[in-house]
């Protein structure tokens, strides 16, 4: 599905530079549940952002379904993010001035889905994550677990083929984190590819494959027998 070849990323801090990634080769297949682990600062988030084309690499090639993305315009890349990728973040990242329902409607709005259908689909997504009673609530009125479920519903709005999750359980108590993980596992069973960054070894072991980063390089890449 995705092939990274020699991806490198360096941040220029003016006087010095920070190399976050140095030559990452990685192939992600459809249907995988890939966990990314590694110490703080090893480049996990950077890798995830590059995978989600929120950020671009300084070197290397990114192939999505064998298409090189480096030549695409911002509008085209935005469309790919909108239709094929879904993001889940550690700090939920909901729009606080909009209700749960409206938050879920945003990706549909960018996709140009019409008003009534947009609302119906957003409702159905919130029902799926068990929030039928929280549709009109604003993020600051909800618990962390509820907020993260809204974020997942929003990530799923356009039926993405890839979910990119950056420590989705990091801000949650373990029981709520477990709920989130089960939702992701359910999605994976339905065929959605998942890339999840985590610090937690137990969660890291839950995926079908685990990539360990250290200082911007892949330290290990282990697949779990199905």
């Amino acid at each position: 599905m995705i092939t990274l070849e020699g991806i490198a990323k360096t941040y220029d801090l003016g006087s010095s530079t920070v190399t976050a990634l140095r030559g990452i080769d990685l192939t992600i297949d459809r249907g995988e549940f890939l966990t990314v682990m590694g110490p703080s600062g090893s480049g996990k988030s950077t890798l995830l952002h590059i995978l989600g084309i929120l950020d671009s690499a300084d070197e290397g090639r990114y192939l999505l379904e064998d298409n090189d993305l480096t030549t695409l315009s911002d509008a085209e890349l935005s469309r790919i993010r909108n239709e094929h990728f879904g993001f889940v973040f550690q700090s939920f990242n909901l729009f606080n001035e909009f209700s749960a329902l409206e938050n879920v409607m945003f990706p549909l709005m960018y996709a140009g889905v019409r008003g009534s259908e947009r609302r119906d689909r957003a409702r159905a997504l919130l029902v799926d994550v068990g929030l039928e009673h929280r549709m009109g609530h604003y993020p600051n009125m909800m618990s962390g677990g509820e907020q993260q479920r809204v974020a997942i519903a929003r990530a799923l709005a356009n039926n993405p083929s890839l979910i990119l999750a950056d420590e989705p359980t990091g801000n949650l108590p373990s029981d709520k984190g477990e709920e989130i993980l089960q939702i992701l596992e359910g999605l994976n069973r339905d065929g959605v590819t998942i890339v999840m960054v985590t610090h937690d070894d137990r969660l890291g072991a839950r995926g079908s494959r685990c990539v360990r980063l250290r200082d911007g390089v892949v330290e290990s890449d282990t697949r779990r027998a199905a």
Partner: protein
Amino acid sequence: MSWADRLWMSIRHIRGRLVESILVISATAIGVALVAAMFAFIRSYDRQTDYLLSHPAYREITVEVVGNETEITEAAVRFDASVSRAISLGTADLARARASVAAVDHGYLADAERFVVGSPLTAANRTAIASQWGAIGGTGGIAGGGATGARGQGSGAADGQARADGEFGFTVPRGTEGGTGTATMDPEQMRAQFEALLGTGDDDAAVVSELPVDGFSGYRVTGEFFAAYGLRAAEGTVFTNEDIEAGNQAIVLGHDLARTLFPNSTAIGSRIRLGIQTFTVVGVLAPTGVRSIETGTSFNRLGFVPNAAAQVQFAGRAISFQRPTRTLRFAIDDSSRLDAAVQQLILFFDSEYGPGTTRVTASLNALTSERQKLSRILAVVLFLAAAALFIASINLFNLMLMRVIKRTRGIGISRAIGASRREIFRQFINESACMSLTGAAIGLLLAPIAYGLLRTSLIADVGAVDLMNWLYFVIGAALALAVSVLFGVYPARQAGRVDASLAIRSE
């Protein structure tokens, strides 16, 4: 994302920060109102001065006697034995000036009046006047606004004693300078003579007794007035100076006035009674675009009679009822010769009557210098209006820039869920434009108020010009809106440039 969705988002964001939004919208409204009002005002002022500059009255050079108004008025009625040229200007002075001053093309008198239709002698005032006259015993002259049963109006009529209520009446001069003739006569005999003199008009079979109006406005003019104002007769003819000298009691009617007075028949040849005088209609003017500067009344609705002494025989002598003309008017066809004409007139009148006796004024010069002065004021006010708009726009600019910074993280999230840079730009420009537009809409409502304040404080009304011009309000508001919207571009571009990855990482 549709336009409506973006609007919805903008409204949500503006509502979320209502107080600061309202403040910025208010500032924009004030800026737009001032700019729009100034725009419309400058335009209407230009239109007004253009109108005035093209008006025949502003091609005039006026010559007035400098002096005590009472003195002049008291000399208004003169027994012809005692004509004293130095006190009041009249047709004779006009003729001599025309003969000597080459630079002017026209010279005339033109005094605005309200003509009252019919005889002044109702049964009641006939008795009152006669007894007043009889009691005084007939020494002295007869002066005042009642001479033709008319009363002056506007600046053209220097009629100090005209009765404001329009009633017919005579006043007897306080001094005796006006009447050196000593008419010694029995009061009873005098009363009888006087009644005979004034008459009722009923005895004159040719006079049209029923007219559909009580009165009308007009001017007492001399012959060259018509050419100076570009008025020509469509029917009959206008009267000339020769006609006036011959003592013809002629009247020329404006196009509409003729139709009003004589809806069914031709006006020419009809005799009409206006106060104590009876006039014969000699001409009806072709329709004209000229309007009275003071009242805006179309010249089509005015009547014009000779500006001459009303000669009547009284007690065996001729009495002339001469209105106190204080203003001689001269006109030139080519305004480039204005200064030369003014110089020559000053020279002529100073040598004839002595320096300081007369005042020569060119309205055009006065207006031109007033325009220059006011233009400078307007430039300053326009600058202040633009400054208000500028400050309002800077506030909007700051507010939007602040929102971009505050919502940086939100921008990153939007980008992650599929918004392009262009989309982000559009969202922010939409939001600032919403505020600009609301401000401009409110400003457009406020603009007429600001406009009214400017008008009443800066220029006098000219009735003939329709000053309210909404188009210019709208153009002014649109320009102001454009400025305001423009100030939203930079913050929106900053929003579009936000690095999504960095924005999301920022905690």
